[in-house]
């Protein structure tokens, strides 16, 4: 056996101890594996294209959750970050001939800047007022874009951007690996100490302030982080579509993000990602009945939220897992005793 065998056994025992114990972790594992292995089974260009967009929007919805779900800064204009990054990426690529792997991060930094610019006036607002104010920003920016068609291309947008890569398969792998990676990073952020402070800001801002935490800094941090991740999505979108137009700033897109995230379940990064992976392909699938497509879509979303107000994924998770009353560790519902502290599960 030797050394490789030792490491293999160790990896397997780690896998069995950490992943196989909980159905939700198994589900995440299967999901990641499925996303990565899918091209082995089908390389249908239509399917790959849909999944590329699904991955991009999953990053976008998760970044919304980071800002609005976790920090409680209700943002109804999240398309702003997406659009700003798409335009920045497009301009960098077209004017300066930068390749995608430089233009996308720089475009995302543009979105961070946008996050700072809208974050500062929004610091004093909360709830409905914040939502209305953030809603206005993409509309304002759209006006600006129409006003300077020489730079932005006006209503037609910018076209002729470089491809992300040569082949559709590579595009698929770039977007899906980025989706998995960024999703993991966002989840880690919310799980960290910074994440606790962001959570606390959502609960009670005054109490956080009187605990000696600079809430301004953390709220701006949330805007910037969220802007960065949304910006990566925007940059990818520009390079996949090869155009960056005013549609990236539309109010409809902002609301679409909210619908995806709320459907999947907010305050959990995996919820919005799952929401996009269910709803976006569903909307495509419903093209088989084009006339009532949106009606059926709306019906499904409404019924789901009527019975699962927390969102689909947290509801499912509560069905298959329960918390140990003593140590608060999650267990499969079929277990009689907690897997860590062996307390009775009722």
């Amino acid at each position: 056996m030797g050394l490789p065998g030792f490491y293999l056994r160790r990896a397997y025992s780690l896998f069995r101890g950490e992943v196989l114990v909980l159905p939700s972790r198994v589900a995440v594992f299967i999901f990641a594996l499925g996303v990565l292995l899918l091209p082995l089974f089908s390389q249908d260009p239509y399917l790959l294209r849909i999944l590329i967009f699904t991955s991009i929007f999953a990053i976008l919805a998760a970044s919304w959750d980071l800002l609005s779900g976790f920090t409680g800064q209700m943002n109804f204009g999240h398309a702003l970050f997406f659009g700003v990054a798409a335009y920045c990426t497009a301009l960098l690529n077209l004017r300066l001939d930068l390749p995608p792997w430089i233009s996308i991060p720089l475009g995302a930094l543009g979105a961070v800047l946008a996050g700072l610019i809208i974050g500062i006036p929004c610091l004093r607002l909360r709830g409905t007022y914040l939502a209305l104010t953030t809603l206005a920003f993409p509309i304002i920016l759209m006006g600006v874009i129409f006003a300077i068609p020489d730079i932005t291309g006006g209503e037609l947008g910018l076209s002729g951007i470089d491809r992300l890569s040569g082949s559709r398969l590579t595009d698929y792998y770039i977007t899906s690996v980025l989706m998995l990676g960024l999703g993991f990073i966002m989840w880690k952020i919310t799980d960290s100490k910074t994440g606790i402070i962001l959570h606390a800001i959502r609960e009670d801002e005054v109490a956080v302030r009187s605990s000696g935490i600079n809430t301004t800094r953390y709220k701006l941090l949330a805007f910037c982080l969220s802007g960065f991740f949304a910006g990566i999505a925007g940059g990818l979108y520009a390079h996949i579509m090869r155009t960056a137009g005013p549609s990236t700033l539309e109010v409809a897109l902002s609301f679409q993000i909210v619908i995806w995230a709320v459907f999947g379940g907010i305050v959990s990064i995996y919820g919005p990602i799952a929401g996009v992976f269910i709803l976006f392909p569903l909307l495509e699938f419903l093209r088989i009945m084009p006339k009532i497509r949106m009606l059926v879509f709306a019906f499904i979303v409404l019924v789901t939220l009527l019975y699962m107000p927390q969102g689909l994924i947290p509801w499912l998770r509560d069905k298959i897992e329960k918390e140990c009353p003593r140590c608060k560790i999650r267990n499969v519902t079929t277990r009689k005793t907690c897997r860590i502290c062996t307390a009775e599960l009722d």
Partner: protein
Amino acid sequence: MGQSFLEIEGLNKGFGGLRAVNNVGFSMGRDEVLGLIGPNGAGKTTILRLITAILKPDSGRIRFKGKKIVGRKTWDIVNLGIACTFQNMRPFRRLPIIANVMVPCLSPRAMKRGEWVKKVEAKAMDALEFAGISDMALEKASTLSQGDLKRLEVARAVATEPELLLLDEPFGGLSPAETDLMAKSMHRLHKGGRFGRLHSEGPAMIIVEHKLQQLMKIVDRIIVLNFGTIIADGKPQEVVKQPEVIRAYLGEGGI
């Protein structure tokens, strides 16, 4: 009285037509425990909120250890060493209790003073231990009873290792037994020392309270407020005998 530790001069605050705090001025020493009493609406809570800059004063000066604190942000003031609790408790309800206390443990002041503590969780746990609710550390804060919420407030305030502690009705809603416990832990805190990884400076305290009997046991000095102005200031036993104080509390005629 020692060298002036907290100094308040000509403090004014109005809400619309109401003068909640009217030309209040007092100073206190480093080791004092000050009781702030008065009938409802006398401006006690407002004074505490003005000190921690949750509210902005209309005029007046507040100095803490010789530094002006009017105009500073709340978190700056907390990081200077003033911690406060809220009268109507404001826990982060959907977070576990330990996370509630980890938030102040993550403030710059607590991080700097506890550099040697590797884990913030451990320090938060000691603050909970001090307040006596460490056994419920993993429960959600929304499951706590009124008394335990008060203790959580105290744990959160203590976690920043303050030099001045502002307590807003620490005994409000507690049973007599719980009140005694709380009073004892206040006393222990004021003496200073170590509670596990947590260090107590032996903070000076300003306590706003209605339960006079318990308050009298722990304070060195009492200030009585009525309609936003100070009507009495002195040793507890002397203050409660003053006719104005009795009149303010019980109305004309007295006992």
